[in-house]
């Protein structure tokens, strides 16, 4: 008996007991569906995070004060540093200026220091708490942001410490009533009037990385007119220094150059004593990749347990079926079925059950993940072939594994006794 005949026989006997077959498949359907849906959503989240991090700019290095390890004396530098949490040894405008010197750090193309604070922005009766990023004209190129209207901070504004502001798209939208063009209007940042010179293109991003809920001002203006913080040496403090590196291959050497300059300026002898942190996209990506990866595997393993339960369900039903069909097995053996024929017939039934279940489960998993992600903007489920192959392969394996014991029981039945079975 060849494979095709075995599959046909299996179909015949499974369709004769349709309800039971469907119920048996349910475990596999749910298991495969859950695995595929969870893996697809998990990979979708990974892609989303990767896109968001990449949208921060290419060949970008973040230089932040403090260390990520956060020892007892060093301030804990996290992304909150970007938002301006103070730290014991701050980065200064002077640090940024030296980094910008092409002779000191040849692999750096552009350097954009930024001073970040939460401020209150007011236009007319409308007021809004938002993040102010005070920076230099290089920022736009380093962070790859573009204006939709007007212009970004220019070097003239920086030199003159002009009271000009560029609004994130969301700030502009919320602050100005529809129909009012923000360009040329005067807003107040912490009660100091600023003229709006530009509105940024929407960038997307959510949570900490929401790039649209920001107001940009020249760095010199912030230091002279809004926040007069200085270090003990009288240097202007910056919250972060964004660095664009000449090429991706030079990222490591650029990091080295930055570290060397900063250690010299901060009087640090050993790398272990660093009071700053250099982060690149790959670091951020790998941290998030790791977290989402672990979560995906964890959830998928829970889903895989239901595959196991489904397999046990198949075994249970197959055992019942073998007992019920003892006489049929006897007849088949009497007319010449060998052990292997009976074995493959019952194995085929188990595999057909699990493969059909796997197919329906795959369809439901894809549909389910699409439905779920349609509720979350920007998140797209990534239907990976690997997940489908893995789940389908696993379900065939489950069918073979849990079908083999009942099939073996059927194959070794004695034809005389089987024929006598009532």
């Amino acid at each position, binding site marked *: *008996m060849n494979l095709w*005949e075995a599959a046909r*026989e299996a179909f*015949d*006997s499974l369709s*004769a007991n349709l309800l039971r077959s469907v119920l048996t498949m349910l475990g596999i359907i749910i298991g495969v569906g859950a695995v595929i849906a969870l893996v697809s959503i998990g990979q979708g989240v990974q892609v989303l995070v990767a896109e968001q991090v990449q949208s921060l700019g290419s060949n970008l290095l973040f230089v932040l004060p403090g260390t990520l390890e956060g020892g007892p004396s060093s301030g804990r530098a996290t992304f909150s540093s970007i938002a301006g949490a103070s730290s014991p040894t701050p980065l200064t405008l002077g640090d940024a200026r030296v980094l910008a010197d092409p002779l000191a750090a040849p692999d750096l193309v552009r350097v954009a220091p930024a001073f970040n604070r939460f401020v209150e922005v007011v236009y007319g009766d409308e007021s809004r708490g938002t993040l102010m990023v005070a920076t230099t004209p290089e920022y736009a190129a380093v962070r790859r942001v573009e204006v939709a209207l007007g212009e970004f901070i220019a070097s003239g504004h920086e030199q003159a410490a002009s009271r000009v502001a560029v609004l994130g798209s969301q700030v502009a939208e919320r602050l100005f009533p529809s129909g009012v063009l923000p360009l040329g209007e005067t807003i107040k940042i912490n009660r100091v009037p600023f003229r709006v010179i530009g509105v940024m293109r929407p960038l997307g991003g959510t949570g900490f990385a929401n790039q649209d809920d920001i107001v940009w001002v020249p760095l010199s203006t912030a230091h002279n007119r809004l926040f007069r913080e200085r270090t003990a040496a009288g240097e202007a403090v910056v919250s972060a220094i964004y660095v664009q590196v000449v090429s991706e291959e030079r990222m490591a050497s650029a990091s080295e150059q930055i570290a060397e300059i900063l250690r010299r300026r901060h009087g640090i002898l050993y790398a272990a004593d660093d009071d700053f942190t250099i982060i690149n996209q790959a670091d951020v990506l790998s941290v998030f990749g790791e977290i989402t990866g672990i979560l995906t595997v964890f959830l998928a393993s829970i889903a895989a347990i239901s595959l196991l339960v489904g397999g046990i369900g198949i075994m249970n039903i197959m055992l019942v079926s073998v007992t019920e069909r003892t*006489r*049929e097995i*006897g*007849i*088949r*053996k*009497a*007319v*010449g*079925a*060998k*052990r*292997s*024929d009976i074995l493959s017939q019952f194995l085929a039934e188990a595999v057909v059950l699990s493969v059909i279940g796997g197919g329906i489960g795959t369809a439901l998993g894809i549909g389910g993940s699409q439905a779920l992600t349609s509720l979350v903007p920007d998140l797209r489920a990534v239907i990976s072939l690997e997940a489908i192959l893995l789940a389908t392969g696993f379900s065939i394996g489950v069918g073979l594994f849990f079908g083999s014991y009942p099939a073996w029981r059927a194959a070794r039945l004695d*034809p*005389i006794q089987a*024929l006598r079975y009532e």
Partner: protein
Amino acid sequence: MTESPLIRAENLVKVYRLGQVEVPALRGVSLEIQPGELVSIMGPSGSGKSTLMNLLGCLDRPTSGRYFLEGKEVGGLSDDELAQIRNRKIGFVFQTFNLLPRATALRNVELPLLYGRGDRRRERAEQALRAVGLGDRVHHRPQELSGGQQQRVAIARALVNQPPIILADEPTGNLDSKSGAEVMEVLEHLSRERGITVIFVTHDPYIASRTRRILRLHDGVLLSDEKLEDRSVLEGTL
């Protein structure tokens, strides 16, 4: 047709073990059956005739003794080899028909072909059904057929691989006398036209009376071997 016997059994013994007790079912049966013979094996229940049929049908192996089928010893073959011999050499007809209830007559008849030479399966199955007069019932399921028709489907199934032997175990036991007579006619016809050896296992004297040789078993021993020519001669003189 006398060159070699189709079936030759030498001193067949079969002992069943029921726990600690050994129950002898056959205690040394020897017989020869020639191709094309129409034979009845008779005996009261417990005489060992079912055991003998299982041995002759290669469903079981003797405890001792030798069994030759077409000159080849089959007593020591493996389960799978026996299955192959059942497939090619032996057709079974059972008292309870033993058809697959969910399959059509055609599928039932095709069954032995599934486990053997599989070419032109449908055609050969249809041919076998026509041979038993059921050419118009091909797509009926067993429960849509009368008892006599079901038994004829079973005969078509036994026939489809063109085996030299058909073993019929009380083939009319579950039938009324009219259907029983029809079934007997079909089997006699096959024996006459195709030279198939038909062995009946029965305690129905009516069946025995229509065969030309009667083997009588009692307590696992062959009591008598009545050749039929004698009787037909006798009937002719009466």
